[in-house]
Each structure stands twice: as C-alpha cells, then as structure tokens.
C-alpha cells in the first residue's frame, strides 16, 4: 500500500505547534488525529524540532540595528543611482568623440587630393612676386611639408585625449 504524502490537517498541526499551543492548549481531536495519522505525526515531530531551534536561535542571534541597515542601503542606493546616471554621459562622450574623429578623417580625405593643386597655386602666386624659381619651389616644398606635419599634429591632438579617455574610463 502506498503511503499518503499529505494530510488535509497537517497545516493545523503546524499552526498549533508554531503558536505554542501543542499539545495541551489545542483541540484534543487534532492531537488524537496526529497520533494516528502517519503524515501528521511526522509533520509534528519535524515542526517541533524546528520550532525549538528557531526559538533558541532567536535569543542567540544578533542582528544589526535597523538604522544601520537603512543607512547602508541608502548609501548604496545613492552610489548605484549616481553610477546609473553617469552611464548615458559616458556613452554620449564616446559617441561625440567618434563623430569628431569621423568628421576629421572624412575632411582630411576630401582635402587630401586638393593639396598638390593648392601648393601649385601658392607656387604660381609666389612666382609672380618672387624673382627666383628655385626660391619659390623651395617655399612651396616647405609649405607642403608643413601642411602634412600640421595635419599629423592635429590628428595626434584629437586622438590622444580620446584614446586616454577610452583607456582610463571605468566602463
């Protein structure tokens, strides 16, 4: 014969035990029932043991003061909300940096083919005012080098802070 796994009265037994009424201050019929019901007998034995442990533990256990728990929770909530508020800003900074870099590179790409023509224009203008062709071509060559150096320096000035930001950022 298979054993029952539950009894409709087991909750009553548990309630009586946890209320401290078991067995003398509760319904006699319930006590008699528990004596004859295998499930309730087992439930009563387990519940009595656990209740005894709970009662003793509640006396022994030390819990932090309510104010302390509240304070820690309040501080943590504030830290978390600060971090949560800073998160979109971090994203905005990263996106802005990427846009600036993209604009700079696309501008550079657009301007790059025009550079020789620009240098030629400068050289022609210089030819009109300067007497020697050697001098003007030397100035034009120097100007072309200066433009390249300036562009590289500009790129370094923009990329370095961005790279530092990405490396040092928490997120």
């Amino acid at each position, binding site marked *: 014969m298979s054993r029952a*796994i*539950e009894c409709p009265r087991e*909750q009553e037994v*548990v*309630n009586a035990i*946890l209320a401290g009424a078991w067995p003398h201050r509760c319904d006699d019929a319930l006590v008699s029932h528990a004596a004859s019901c295998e499930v309730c007998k*087992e*439930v009563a*034995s*387990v*519940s009595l*043991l*656990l*209740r*005894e*442990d*709970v009662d*003793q*533990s*509640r006396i*022994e*256990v030390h*819990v*932090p003061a*309510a*104010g302390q*728990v*509240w*304070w*820690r*929770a*309040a*501080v*943590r*909530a*504030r*830290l978390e*909300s600060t971090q949560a508020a800073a998160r979109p800003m971090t994203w905005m900074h990263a996106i802005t940096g990427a846009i600036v870099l993209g604009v700079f590179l696309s501008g550079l790409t657009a301007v790059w083919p025009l550079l020789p023509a620009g240098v030629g224009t400068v050289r022609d203008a210089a030819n009109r005012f300067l007497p020697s062709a050697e001098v003007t071509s030397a100035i034009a060559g120097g100007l072309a080098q200066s433009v390249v150096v300036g562009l590289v320096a500009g790129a370094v000035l923009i990329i370095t802070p961005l790279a530092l930001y990405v490396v040092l950022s928490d997120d």
Partner: protein
Amino acid sequence: MRDLTLTDMERLGAFDEAERTFQMTEEAFRTFYELTARPVRVYLARMTGDDRLADDLLQETYYRFLRASVAFDGDDHRRNYLFRIATNLVHDHRRKPFMEVPPAAAEEVADTRQHGDLAERSVRRMDLHNALKQLKPRERSLLWLAYAQGWSHEEIAAAIGVKTASLKAMLHRARQRLVHRLGSGGRS
C-alpha cells in the same frame, strides 16, 4: 563591501535619495525590520550554515526588499516577499555542496556537558543541524518555510517557483529524508 567615507552633506543627500527610491519610509522600515530581522537571520544562517554569509545576505535581502517596486497586499505578503528574496539569495550562493558546521553548533558540543533539559536540547539541536546540512539546499528551504515559518503550500510554491502539486511531493521527500537523517543521529 567597499569602505565608504561620506561627508555629512553626502549622508543627508543619501537619505533624501533613499526616501525617494525606497518603497517605505525609515520609520515604517524600522517597525518592519524589528518584526522580521531575527527570523530572516536565523533562516539565512540555517540555510547557508555560515554566520558571516548570513549577515551579508541579511543586508542584501533588506536592500533588495527596499528597492523592490511591488504593491504589497499586507504584512503577510510583505514578509513572504522578504523570505522569497532571502531564499533566492541563498540559492544563488549554493554552489558550495555542503555547509560548514555553524560556530553555534560547534559551541553546542561543549554545551552537552550541561545537565538535564538544556543538555538534551543542545544535543537535539546539534543533531538537527547535522541532519539539515546533509539535505539539499532546496529541501532545507522547503522544510524551514513549511515547518518553522508555517507557510502554506501555496505560499512556498509561489516563493520558490514550483507548482503546488510538485511541492507536496518535494516536501514529503524532504521531510522523510530529514526524519531518516535524524533517526541515524544526523550521520550520513
């Protein structure tokens, strides 16, 4: 946990923030905490077998409770929700296959030298702790919520996320295993 140093102004700011973020006032929290902290702490200690971990989980339990955006029907619902958080936290920490023997239980070994009722009670508690620690974490939770907290099957099923019919069978098995362990003096 990270060590924190705050100025008075920051503390005041934190409290203002908390009043807005948390689901109850500090006054209401104090009342609720006084009623529930000890049972929850005992529950956590029995489930984890580690007093230090139980202290940490107690703080975490109340933090999550305070930040929960749940409309509670009453005190019972609020208390059940708190135990549900505690149960989930314990399950998150249950990677350890066996609990350590709690320091309190170790002290009880010495207490058995005492006479009469007190000594018998100490032995019973020690056997109970040993038997509980041989059960699975979920079985410990089930037994505790059912027979130490007096929760109904429906409440436990909702708390641990199983169907009530399944819970009855699980509870029956857990109870039988505990009785068997207790019968063998808590030895495996």
